[in-house]
């Protein structure tokens, strides 16, 4: 009887918490003129396998500063700072990083600790997948992936921002994967918008982190309704 009551109480608390959870939304903007991106054409044309994938097509560039027409700033990782041990990564659907046309897609990705990251090779050429984390506990990997080869799966047990993934066969191929120890994060889209869903009520510090421009924080309190937090990055 006592244990049944406990289960009921926990269930009630969970439902109440889910019902009162709110979304944190916002827009990231970039002020100032970013440096021009570098055209990858000369690099890609130097490799016959990759050059063949771009016949008649526009060559890609680096994409360190992806800014929308209204100044919306993409590829900023927004998360709740200091929220740890809340990862649901083990049960979360896998995230996917694809190697297509000799470029990593997406270039910026965020996952949870323990969440599976599947790396695909959609190209008809060999790649090596070299991840280089720097936080103790996250292992460095370097695996060959043949064309049509099996997907590679990685997990990272420790939180770490911007783990570099690269292909050394095609050294312009880079991606950065941020690993967070909770499900409360988002990556800003091409318009700079982000949504962190289902945040339980409480006081938090929200952090916006861009690989080149570093991190900014704001304090935020989540109560009954959704909360809006905007960030402005500036390049000098």
């Amino acid at each position, binding site marked *: 009887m006592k244990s049944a009551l406990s289960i009921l109480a926990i269930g009630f608390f969970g439902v109440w918490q889910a019902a009162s959870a709110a979304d944190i939304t916002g827009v990231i903007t970039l002020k100032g003129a970013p440096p021009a991106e570098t055209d990858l054409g000369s690099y890609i044309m130097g490799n016959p396998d990759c050059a063949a994938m771009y016949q008649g097509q526009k060559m890609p560039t680096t994409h360190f500063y992806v800014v929308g027409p209204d100044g919306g700033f993409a590829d900023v990782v927004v998360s709740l700072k200091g929220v740890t041990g809340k990862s649901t990564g083990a049960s979360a659907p896998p995230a996917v990083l694809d190697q297509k046309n000799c470029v990593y897609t997406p270039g910026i990705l965020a996952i949870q600790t323990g969440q599976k990251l599947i790396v695909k090779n959609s190209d008809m050429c060999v790649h090596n997948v070299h991840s280089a984390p720097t936080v103790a506990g996250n292992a460095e990997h370097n695996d060959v992936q043949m064309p049509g080869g099996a997907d590679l799966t990685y997990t990272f047990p420790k939180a770490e921002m911007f783990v570099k993934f690269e292909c050394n066969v095609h*050294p312009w191929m880079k991606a950065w994967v941020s690993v967070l120890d909770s499900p409360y994060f988002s990556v800003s889209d091409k318009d700079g918008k982000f949504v962190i869903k289902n945040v339980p009520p409480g006081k938090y510090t929200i952090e916006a982190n861009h690989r080149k421009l570093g991190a900014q924080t704001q304090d935020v309190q989540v109560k009954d309704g959704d909360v809006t937090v905007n960030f402005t990055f500036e390049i*000098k």
Partner: protein
Amino acid sequence: MNVKAQITNNPWLHRFAVLTAIITFLLLGVGGLVTSHEAGMSVPDWPTSYGYNMFALPIKFWKGGALFEHSHRLLASGAGFFTTVLAVWLWLKDSRKWMKWLGVTAFLLVVAQGVLGGLRVTLKMNNLGVIHGVVGQSFFILICAIALFTSRFWREWVAGGKTFLVSRGLWVFVLATTILIFCQLILGATMRGQHAGLAIPDFPTAYGKLWPDTSADAVARYNANRVEVISTNPITPFQIILQMAHRIVALAVFILVAVAAWLSWKRLGGKSPLAKLAAFWLGLIVCQIALGAWTVWSNKAADVATLHVLVGALSLVTGALWCIIAFGRREGAANLAPAKTISGAFGTSPAMAANK
């Protein structure tokens, strides 16, 4: 006993040693290309390559970074084979006991260097790459020294055919300069091992100044404005200071080698092989400084940076060979040449006239 007769006259052994030195030099070049193209990890397995026997890797995989890394492995195997043959040849045919052991040392060093290169890949240890680069330079000195010791020039030199002495001061001065060049190569290898590209993008200024701002704000600004493609690690104040140290040491090396060349010319006479070698050394250093500047101006273009590594290796080995050649002719050394003396490190002496 005639000294000249003690040294085996074996021109083919000498030619083989020279060939091994040339292969080693090419190997240093391809190794430089591997680092310049960030290709060191492009073939994740070793001693196999993509699971294949290294010598049977299908040609379709010889592309991009794998072309450089796999070529480096094959050339390293060639250098290993040639060094092994050289060591056996020296053991069997060279009459000098110390030369036999020098061959054994070369064999052990080439094996160690190969294992270091392999472990750098399989253990994913970046720092091993720096050690691998430095050991490679040391191995090149050793092979060049073996080529020197098996040459006709060396036999005549030891036999006293060329008669002059080098002041102890000048010898120590050149040795110190050579050690400084070795330190400079370690600095360069450490810079390349950071995989962060150019820590300072301009030359002769540094971020427009004589000494760059290395505050956290300034470094954050530098990183924000870099749009790097290959070497994407963010730069740090340490890397900026490292490159400044590399520039300062380069200037010091230039001054010291210029002084060494001038002293060699003045003291030993223009016809002396040591004076000629010192002049060649100075020429190399001038080229090396120009290549260093070009490396910066080209935003660390892979071929230019690699050429900079190669001329650095030649500069080091030239200084080392000068020291080796002059070793037995130091003032006060127990040498076989007719006695002539030069007093003082840099002072004048009557013997200078005899040297000329």
